């Protein structure tokens, strides 16, 4: 089929993130999360007995606290914990901006309400991702069809790229992006079957790292092309790429080819020199192969001297939420010109040199990069510029 050139003007449209929020074990808004991160607090705790697991570490949101917070905004109670987290994450953003028929609703998740399958009395349809998306979008009165991004562990970052790209087509003026995943026996047993679970809280890039710690969270951002909504402290989405390794479905490329190309694509679109980069919020799952692959890709790109951290030892790997949650925190780092130490890291455990942030420090941050990689060989990189 032949694509017409009606989208030739897309490249000139600027898209910004002007408002963010997150719901995690460290707090139900950005301010409380930020304060906890500055103090080095982690949401990861030890749990006993689930399924066949004797004990495990995970970053889990307290259900009672979710119920209490949710009761203050709605008297309806037919929502799952994940749905409540998603609604709580979006709520403060919705009040500030109008939803029109040119407002996109983008939802990122890997497993959605997968926990519903545990009870055979539940209809399987309840686990449909589009049904979950509709439930959240209807709650807030969106009129456009929800766009569900389900692309493994890159979903949350990819959702930002998708929202920005769809705004650039001119179909939408603005977009609300929300992401969430819950800890379930389904994902715990699955990662455990891969022998990919760490016996202790995860240690990204450390020499003793031996796998992931899972987590749950919800995050939300508002993207807009309306310049009148942009204030200092907003960030402009200046480039993105989401390129496959074409190597293996359950392991990253040894050369980091897909991540390398994704980052190259983001910089090429932005027209920004790599020397300008101030900070990288990386994926850093703490598996042997992922962290090593990232170090290789960053070295190939010559961005290995740029300050980098992983937030996984604070929040665990929150799957489809992780990319968006970590972007929300990276934006906070840029706003505050403050780098957060990469928790769990003590001694360099990757073969190529990278500049892990070992203590909290002030630094002017104007350009920053968020990356993620996942099963299926997927990778995504999004490049941001702070509005000053």
């Amino acid at each position, binding site marked *: *089929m*032949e*694509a*017409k*050139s*009606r*989208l*030739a003007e*897309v*490249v000139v449209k600027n898209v910004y993130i002007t408002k963010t929020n997150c719901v995690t074990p460290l707090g139900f808004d950005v301010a409380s999360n930020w304060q906890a991160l500055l103090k080095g607090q982690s949401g990861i705790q030890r749990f006993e007995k689930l*399924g*066949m697991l004797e004990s495990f570490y995970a970053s889990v949101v307290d259900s009672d606290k979710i119920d209490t917070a949710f009761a203050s905004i709605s008297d309806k109670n037919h929502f799952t914990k994940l749905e409540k987290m998603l609604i709580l994450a979006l709520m403060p953003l919705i009040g500030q901006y109008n939803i029109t028929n040119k407002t996109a609703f983008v939802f990122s998740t*890997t*497993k959605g309400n*997968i926990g519903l*399958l*545990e009870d055979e009395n539940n209809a399987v349809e309840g*686990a*449909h*991702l*589009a*049904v979950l998306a*509709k439930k959240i979008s209807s709650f807030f009165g969106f009129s456009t*069809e929800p*766009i*569900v*991004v*389900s*692309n*493994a562990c890159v979903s949350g970052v*990819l959702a930002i790229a*998708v929202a920005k*790209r*769809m705004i650039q*087509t001119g*179909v939408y003026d603005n977009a609300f992006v929300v992401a969430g995943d819950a800890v379930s*026996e*389904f994902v715990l*047993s*699955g990662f455990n*079957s*891969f022998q990919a679970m760490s016996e202790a809280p995860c240690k990204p890039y450390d020499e003793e790292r031996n796998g992931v710690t899972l987590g749950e969270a919800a995050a939300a951002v508002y993207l807009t092309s309306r310049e009148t909504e942009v204030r200092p402290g907003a960030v402009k989405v200046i480039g993105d*790429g*989401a*390129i*496959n*390794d*074409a*190597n*293996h*479905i359950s392991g990253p490329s040894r050369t980091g*080819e*897909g991540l390398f*190309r994704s980052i190259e694509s983001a910089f090429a*679109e932005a027209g920004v020199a790599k020397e300008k980069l101030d900070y990288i919020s990386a994926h850093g799952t703490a598996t042997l192969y992922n962290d090593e692959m990232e170090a290789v890709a960053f070295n190939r790109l010559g961005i290995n001297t740029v300050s980098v951290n992983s937030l996984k030892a604070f929040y665990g790997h929150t799957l489809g939420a992780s990319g968006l949650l970590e972007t929300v925190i990276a934006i906070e780092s840029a706003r505050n010109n403050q780098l957060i130490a990469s928790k769990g890291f003590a001694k360099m455990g990757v073969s190529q040199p990278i500049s892990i942030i070992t203590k909290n420090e002030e630094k002017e941050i104007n350009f920053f990069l968020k990356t993620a990689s*996942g*099963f*299926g*060989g*997927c990778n995504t990189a999004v490049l941001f510029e702070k509005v000053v």
Partner: protein
Amino acid sequence: MVNGVKQFELEQASFSEFAKAAYKNFNMDYPKFFKMDNLSKLAFLASEIILGSKVKEGEENNIALVFANQSSSLDTDVKYQGSIADKENYFPSPAVFVYTLPNICIGEISIRHKLQSENAFFVFEDFNAEFMTNYADLLLATNKAEKVLCGWVEYYQENYKAILYMVEKQGDLEHNKEIVNTLYNK
């Protein structure tokens, strides 16, 4: 069907019989096929027929993969859940778990043809021609891809449908949501 012409048919067969017969019929030779889950097999078979003539071996092929469906990986999710439902008979397998993500089928196609290119998997209640059209157009207009293979690959418990089409900067048929919808409804 390819470009409206029927290529292969097998009536009253299960998907697994159909998939095996189609694989043989088109003389495919890719042993990894037999390790895939049903969604990946479906996506693989459909893409193989189109990409066979479009991918140039040994060259860079910047063909983006933009796929979507309704049921995500729910068919394999249910299968995996069955393996952990009974504590007396608990056998979670990494070979099954890895397929509990819908984008794995894109990964399989990328590996098959060494497509180190843009890829994304979406979920919609119904085929969303407007979204697919706009997203593919944008990838081409921004030069993030030279061609885009778009696909609706739906599989849930023996109910399945795969519609794939290639979008390029030059072609015989105009790329718009009406024509894409016609393809889907054929």
